[in-house]
């Protein structure tokens, strides 16, 4: 072989090596986990599959797609409704499958961005926010009913109440739309990026922003009822449990607030960024953080246990009966189920 050819190969190898550092397909998000109402089945969106698991054993029941397809990626939590399972992909497509076997019922390929948000499903419609700045609304047969466009991507799961759908956008705005027509009822500039959707509880919307605050907004008219500062940016949707408004921030604090006034009941420093929604279950509060910890707290904010799972934990802990399910990011294990004492019950895939 000529020396010139060798030199060319050497240079190309070097450049390819450098290039591969950019092109490495690292997970773009964390697992999205949904549990059915019977607490029997878990649906997990992560990387190249939607997987249905037995909630008590972690055994895989089916996977979508059935053959490996590198063009398909999904991370947003699937949603169940009217006998269908719905999820959006990072491949810009939206899908409806049969929950029992994962068979495709219909799909939509008209979006131009990633489905980062989990869809919202009611008896009549499916509301799917997309990073292409659109909210897509379908009926259960997959017919596109209407869209609503914002100036920036929509990453948050919509909320719904009394015929009004509420959506957030990275553009700082909260929107109230007529669920049937998509007409704007009111808008609110919250002053900070909204990476998650609002919680709707008894006519009040609760939402955290990157302006390091949480707001309570009157769902009927869009007036701010109160706003309370947090230590860091708020990513996850707040949760309501036993009369407490719970939320976490990227500084690692877990907050319990009075939902009526925003007054602080207690805070807990967890030691790692919280990106998800806290989980209330059997008089305990569970939260996961970037430091790889699952933390169990009592209703007055005292730590009950603090388990280290060794790798970053993002998103929300989800209940499946008495089990707490946690998605793992950037690891060979996708989901871990722990019991209320913090002991691991199963992991998926099971060989890890």
């Amino acid at each position, binding site marked *: 072989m000529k020396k010139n050819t060798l030199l060319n190969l050497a240079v190309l190898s070097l450049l390819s090596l450098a*290039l591969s550092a950019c092109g490495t397909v690292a997970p773009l998000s964390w697992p999205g986990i949904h549990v059915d109402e019977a607490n029997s089945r878990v649906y997990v969106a992560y990387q190249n599959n939607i997987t249905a698991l037995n909630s008590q054993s972690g055994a895989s029941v089916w996977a979508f797609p059935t053959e490996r397809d590198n063009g398909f990626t999904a991370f947003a939590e699937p949603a169940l409704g009217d006998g269908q399972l719905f999820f959006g992909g990072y491949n810009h497509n939206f899908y409806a499958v049969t929950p029992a076997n994962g068979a495709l019922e219909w799909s939509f390929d008209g979006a131009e961005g990633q489905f980062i948000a989990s869809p919202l499903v009611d008896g009549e419609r499916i509301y799917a926010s997309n990073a292409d700045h659109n909210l897509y609304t379908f009926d259960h047969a997959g017919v596109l009913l209407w869209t609503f466009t914002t100036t920036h*991507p929509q990453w948050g799961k919509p909320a719904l109440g009394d015929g009004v759908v509420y959506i957030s956008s*990275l553009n700082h705005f909260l929107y109230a739309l007529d669920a049937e027509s998509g007409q704007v009822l009111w808008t609110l500039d919250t002053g900070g990026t909204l990476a998650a959707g609002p919680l709707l509880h008894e006519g009040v919307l609760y939402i955290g922003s990157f302006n*390091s605050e949480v707001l309570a907004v009157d769902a009927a008219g869009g007036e701010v009822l109160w706003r309370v500062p947090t230590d860091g940016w708020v990513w996850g949707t707040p949760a309501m449990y036993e009369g407490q408004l719970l939320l976490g921030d990227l500084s690692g604090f877990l907050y319990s607030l009075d939902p009526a006034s925003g007054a602080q009941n207690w805070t807990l420093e967890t030691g790692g960024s919280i990106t998800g929604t806290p989980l209330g279950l059997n008089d305990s509060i569970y939260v996961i953080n970037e430091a790889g910890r699952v933390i169990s707290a009592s209703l007055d904010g005292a730590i009950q246990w603090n388990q280290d799972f060794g790798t970053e934990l993002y998103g929300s802990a989800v209940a499946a009966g008495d089990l707490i399910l946690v998605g793992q990011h950037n690891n060979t294990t996708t989901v871990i189920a722990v019991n209320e004492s913090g002991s691991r019950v199963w992991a998926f895939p099971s060989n890890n």
Partner: protein
Amino acid sequence: MLDIIIVPFTNVLVFLYDILGQNFGLAIIVFTVLIKLLTYPLSVSQLKSARMTQELQNDPRWKQIQTKYKDNREKLAQEQMKFYQEKGISPFSSCLPMLIQFPLLIAMYWSIQRSLAATPIALLDFARGIALPNAAELLPLNSSFLWMDLSQPERLHLAWLPFAIPVLTIIVVVTTWLQSKMMTPASTNPNDQSAQMARSMSLTMPLMMGYISMVFPSGLSIYYVISNVFGIAQAWLMRRQPLSTTPAAPANK
């Protein structure tokens, strides 16, 4: 590990975005010029070294080595290296300006990805590394610049054309090739190892950079075009100046 570079890069980019009217394209251009100015002394010394290498090839002793060992390639290479060492010159120095671009290019790629944050993990990385007090107000950064979305590969769609033109890719290929040509010392010796390496680089680099421009965010291509134009101008100016330093005197024997 690259966070050591990526985090400051991201902060500077976002700071420039803020003071330049929230224009991310302008921020990338100004940032590229700043990087080129910071690495200017290094580039100058390497360009000088390359020119000295070129001039050495007119040295009578160099020619004598070529003639004497023309039938023994191994010995010829050894003697050439020895000669370079005596003169205090690295024969591969002309390749270095292009090679040092790579860590910077990779850091720039990640900084753009984080700043424009199209995915949750990218936004988390951004949140973790950003130190600007008003960063939350700036989010989300506007990724539009001219006809481009800086977070996506560039294509120009013209109404009268049935296909899109990758304008930036073409500019990247041409300017990379031009820069390689300007920085490569000419050599009349077919056995000259450094010239062979430089020739290889001038062929592979434009292709590789063209590929990167085709598939990676256009913000990265803007960085590379500005960087190339700066490098071409620098090489052109250097060519017009006489060498201020002469090669080191041969070692006494």
